């Protein structure tokens, strides 16, 4: 039977505030255990929550960015359950009246088409603390520094049909929250994480199958692996005549498998009710418009502009604008490169991205600044250097040897464009390669195009890469002509 996968994601993004959602304690990551847990975060008897204004503004920014309605009134509710990292025995969240209601975003599929994914809602809630299982013998240690950190939970419609679509959606949301500067997007530190609801159904069937909820998906790679694994598991069950049961499953990246968390699921009854310590949040039209006016250019709009303004392909524009910082880097580099958009794009997506990846660094902390890259591209464009030499200069810039001009002079890498000097090299190579010359001259023009590469290679070698390749090409073709 052919199966169809149905996926919905619940993304938790930590909002980048200075203080917590309901208290004035700091939210900095990585502090010593419990030093950032104040009386309110600890749920001491008698304490009360007071909502952080920034959190509301950030949620509205998100809502507007995903074309969502912002209801005039939203309500905080208590989700009641006992867990050691949940100090009050309830989590303050939103239930019936979230701050952001229906929205949607577009994602790009592999075949180049666009698909719209619905967003059911996004609501505000407080994060829990952390349980530390190692180092306490027969005990678990509880660190409540993270308790009360603001989260926005973004719930999608079950609109995705493959793990790849789910990843594309998650990447798009990641890109949006970073553009909006409401979340640092740091997945290692858990600032951006997701749960996936996965089910399968026979292709063509309307009703959804029974879903399982996959927890602990804290990288794009794991989302893809976990969903694919879960789909396989469900197919195996159904094809062997079994039934999928609705449950929460934890993904284990080390073993690439999911396992049931039935213990946590047991008798779940969260007893949501409006939090009587907090009054409804009211948001008027003026506030929404004020916030709308401060929204930055978002990925889709920027992509379109890159296509229009810089004449870049959709593919290039998509990659460059997926990351706000990369897009900014690109636009700065162009300014120093006399508008050479395509070359800038190629360098950023090629050499720069490769070395950033290799060294695991952020584009913002690249030792090759956009101005330096732009300067390098200018030297290519004005024929001072060849593309090949440019790569060598780029590596030297990365290693801190200065800007392109300095390196070119220091290493004598200026391109040879003197016609006499180039002709001398061409003649030398022709003399040294009689067999190749004969083969060339007896070939069809089409084949000649390929064979000429040999001569060019030899000449570049002799010139240590400095000969202007176009001049070399032109001269060779003339000299090798038989008639």
């Amino acid at each position: 039977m052919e199966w169809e996968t149905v996926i919905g994601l619940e993304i938790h993004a930590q909002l980048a505030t200075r203080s917590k959602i309901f208290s004035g304690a700091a939210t900095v990551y990585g502090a010593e255990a419990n030093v950032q847990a104040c009386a309110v975060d600890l749920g001491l008897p008698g304490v009360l929550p007071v909502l952080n204004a920034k959190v509301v503004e950030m949620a509205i920014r998100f809502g507007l960015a995903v074309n969502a309605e912002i209801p005039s009134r939203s309500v905080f509710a208590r989700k009641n359950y006992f867990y050691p990292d949940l100090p009050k025995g309830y989590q303050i969240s939103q239930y019936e009246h979230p701050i952001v209601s229906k929205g949607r975003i577009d994602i790009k599929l592999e075949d180049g088409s666009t698909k719209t994914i619905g967003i059911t809602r996004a609501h505000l809630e407080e994060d829990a603390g952390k349980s530390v299982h190692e180092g306490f013998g027969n005990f678990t240690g509880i660190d409540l520094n993270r308790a009360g950190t603001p989260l926005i939970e973004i719930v999608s419609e079950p609109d995705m049909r493959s793990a790849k679509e789910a990843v594309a959606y998650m990447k798009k949301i990641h890109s949006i929250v970073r553009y909006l500067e409401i979340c640092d997007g740091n997945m290692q530190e858990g600032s951006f994480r997701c749960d996936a609801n996965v089910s399968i159904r026979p292709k063509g069937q309307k009703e959804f199958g029974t879903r399982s909820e996959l927890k602990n998906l804290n990288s794009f790679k794991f989302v893809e692996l976990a969903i694919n694994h879960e789909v396989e598991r469900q197919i195996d069950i159904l094809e062997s005549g079994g039934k999928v049961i609705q449950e929460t499953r934890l993904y284990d990246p080390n073993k690439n498998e999911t396992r049931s968390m039935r213990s946590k699921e047991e008798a779940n009854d969260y007893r949501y009710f409006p939090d009587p310590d907090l009054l409804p949040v009211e948001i008027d039209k003026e506030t929404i418009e004020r916030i709308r006016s401060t929204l930055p250019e978002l990925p889709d709009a920027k992509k379109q502009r890159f296509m229009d303004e810089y004449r870049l392909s959709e593919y290039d524009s998509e990659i460059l604008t997926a990351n706000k910082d990369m897009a900014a880097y690109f636009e700065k580099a162009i300014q120093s490169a006399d508008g050479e958009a395509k070359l800038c794009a190629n360098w950023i997506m090629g050499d720069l991205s490769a070395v950033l990846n290799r060294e695991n660094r952020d584009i913002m902390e690249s030792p090759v600044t956009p101005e330096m890259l732009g300067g390098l591209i200018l030297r290519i464009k004005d024929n001072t250097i060849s593309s090949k030499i440019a790569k060598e200069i780029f590596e030297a810039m990365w290693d801190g040897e200065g800007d392109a001009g300095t390196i070119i002079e220091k290493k004598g890498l200026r391109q040879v464009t003197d016609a006499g000097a180039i002709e001398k090299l061409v003649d030398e190579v022709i003399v040294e390669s009689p067999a190749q010359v004969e083969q060339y001259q007896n070939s069809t023009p089409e084949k000649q195009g390929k064979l000429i590469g040999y001569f060019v290679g030899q000449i570049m070698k002799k010139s240590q890469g400095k000969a202007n390749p176009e001049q070399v090409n032109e001269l060779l073709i003339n000299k090798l002509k038989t008639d």
Partner: protein
Amino acid sequence: MHKKNIAELVQVLQHRDISSVELTRLVLERCTNINQKLNCFISITPEHALLQAKLADEKINQGNAGPLTGIPIAQKDIFCTDGVKTSCGSKMLDNFIAPYDATVVEKLNNAGMVMIGKTNMDEFAMGSSNETSFYGPVLNPWDMDRVPGGSSGGSAAAVAARLVPVATGTDTGGSIRQPASLCGITGLKPTYGRISRYGMIAFASSLDQGGPMTRTAEDAALIMNAIAGFDERDSTSAENPVEDYTQHLNNSIAGLKIGLPKEYFDEQLNPDIGRIIHEGVKELEKLGANVKEISLPGSKLSIPVYYVVAPAECSSNLARFDGVRFGYRCNDPEDLSDLYCRSRGEGFGREVKRRIMIGTYVLSAGYYDAYYLKAQKIRRLIRDEFRQALSKVDVIIGPTAPGPAFRINELLDDPITMYLSDIYTVSVNLAGLPAISIPAGMLGGLPVGMQVIGNYFAEPRLLNIAHRFQQVTHWHKLAPAGFD
């Protein structure tokens, strides 16, 4: 000295007839002695008190004294007091030294008051007799076989027995007014949001409100001046401007429109109580007030509604008592569930467990609409009825409690009848209105309180009426035999 009220003590202190330290020593001694009989304190805090008294004397000597400087006060043990045990009447918090001050405590400290101790109360303020306290029942100074009411029973008994001129209370369904009525003192439950709830251990967040318990309305006004007002740490704190509550005490009440709800005077009310309230109202009529009958049909449902809303909120509010970060923790828990279930099972008393379980039930899947949501809808009906009534009359008057103080153990095993003793008080909490109970007569040697309910933020009016009433009556001046 113990016979004096706040207004009188201020005079004595300001004239340096006695220092605050001397006064505090007298009060501490009297409290320590009498507490052995009445059990109205959970903690008496001499060191803390004498330190504050010394500071008060410095202020007085420097001429910087305020209207409450050096005056002794007792705090209900529901208010967190930095460095002092704050038990909430529960084994759960028997070992809890609060690491911070409640806003109310902070404000009274700043006003220069001297805290003598923390008063006994029903466990987590759940009870109407003070018998649910882990620390044992408080005895009513008027008859030591009887309860003082609850949950602020220790505060009421301490003020009635002339141990302190004022104690704080909290009122979720009548917990200031009912014990004030049963002990013959003045108890004001302010408008919801008027007094900060920060640091006041929550029972039912949408109903809880702190307030003063004093002998006179004038003293209540002085305390209100210190504790009322907006608090940025409490999201449910009202930003309405605070008035000087003493300013209108002596205003005439001629033309005052009083509504008497017929439902408050039906066959369920002890006829003697009804007679006393009518006599009290007559006194007000003599002062120029006009009386008319009104109807609050929804008030009949206030007890059912209350026993959904309050337990629902309490079941969630009390979830934080889990033996992990503070409070009671069971011995040698086998695992996490055992830690939770036994710490809570052993740390909470029977009435608290009943209410947590009721609250858990009415919020649980399948029952939420039939109980919780239904109750919140009727709550609106009750509130709207009050609003409508208060657009036609200035205040509503009725009994505070259906009878005088009952005997210890009389209702302990009958929760339903115990719940019904709040029948005239809970609707006020559901609506969030202010109300005051003032002594209005005696029945068989026991005091009877009259309840005056006002519109939102009408505390000055309530205090004015109570004060004028106290100028022409002597009920508030009566002291129980042996405590005068």
